[in-house]
């Protein structure tokens, strides 16, 4: 039992370190990426993984808090991708153009145009 707790303790410390590295990379990504969408994905992916693994790490270091912290992890796993999806979608629809290469193709544009046309038709009826 003692040995198991010790092993869990060191795994927890490692997870906290890993989480802080990911959080740092996320911050770097937000600073360095060229446009909103890249920044959003850098921030979200890194902070989801970083926050989740550091919270799990704290849960392993202090096993009596594990259940509560696990609920927080589930909440982050549920809400963080959702919020970034909503942000990206809303910003595309309000006209933020993605960063493209010279011959890059914006595959999402057609669908948005079609949906806008449908909504306009509905509202004029």
């Amino acid at each position, binding site marked *: 039992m003692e040995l198991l707790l010790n092993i869990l303790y060191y795994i927890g410390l490692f997870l906290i370190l890993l989480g802080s590295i990911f959080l740092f990379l996320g911050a770097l990504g937000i600073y360095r990426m060229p446009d909103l969408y890249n920044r959003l994905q850098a921030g979200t992916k890194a902070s989801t993984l970083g926050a989740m693994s550091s919270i799990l790490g704290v849960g392993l270091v202090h096993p009596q808090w594990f259940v509560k912290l696990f609920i927080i992890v589930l909440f982050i796993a549920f*809400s963080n991708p*959702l919020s970034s999806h909503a942000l990206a979608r809303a910003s595309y629809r309000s006209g933020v153009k993605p960063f493209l290469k010279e011959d890059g193709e914006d595959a999402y544009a057609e669908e948005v145009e079609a949906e806008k046309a449908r909504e306009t038709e509905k*509202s004029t009826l």
Partner: protein
Amino acid sequence: MKRIFVVFLLLVLGLAVYRAFHKAPFGQNRIGDVERPQSVSAFYLKHSPETLHTANSVTAIVVNFRGFDTLGEVTVLFLAATGLASILYRRKEEEEATEKAHLPGRIQLPSSTLVRTGAKILFPLILMLGIYVFVHGHLTPGGGFQGGSIIATGFLLMFITYKRFNVNHNVLIWLESLSGLAFVLTGIYGLISYGSFLQNTGWTGRLNDLISGGLIPLIYIFIGIKVGTELTNVLDTLLHTKPRRHE
């Protein structure tokens, strides 16, 4: 040049902060001996666990020692909500009149299925968290104001996700008024049975129990309901009053 200026500015600010705080006695006991209180803080710290049996001394101060002040704060919030509603209400009527005339409004695209499903799952959880926070106000950090705000964020999520999400205004207004009235009635109960307004009951239970602290959890639940409904009302008024179009 700009960078040098920024560095210079930061240095000046840092120096100012250092000069302001380097003599402040951080980490020292400035409250004094809690067992023999000389200051107000020590009095609060001694009496909130001992005589009121409230684990969270901040709640004991907010709801019991300075309960009258909290009643005033709730009133400020109520006045703000009422003022906002009375200013915006006329505009809402005008807007409804133009909508009846079938004038084209701004096109609002619906949220994606992902967001709608997620909001539907999260909404009851957020409400539950808010209720948990204000029911445990005398045990853990947080309380009526915080729990009420959490509840209002849940409603905000629903408002921005669903175009047609409506709350019943009458229910909100009744809940708000009744909880405000209940707060005042608890105060009057103290006045009648113990001789001063908002006086706590003699029975306060055991420290760290959910039902302890006498009237403190009851008052915080009233505050939680009041703040939650009030903020939801404000959000509803603000979101469903569209800005006036310029012709």
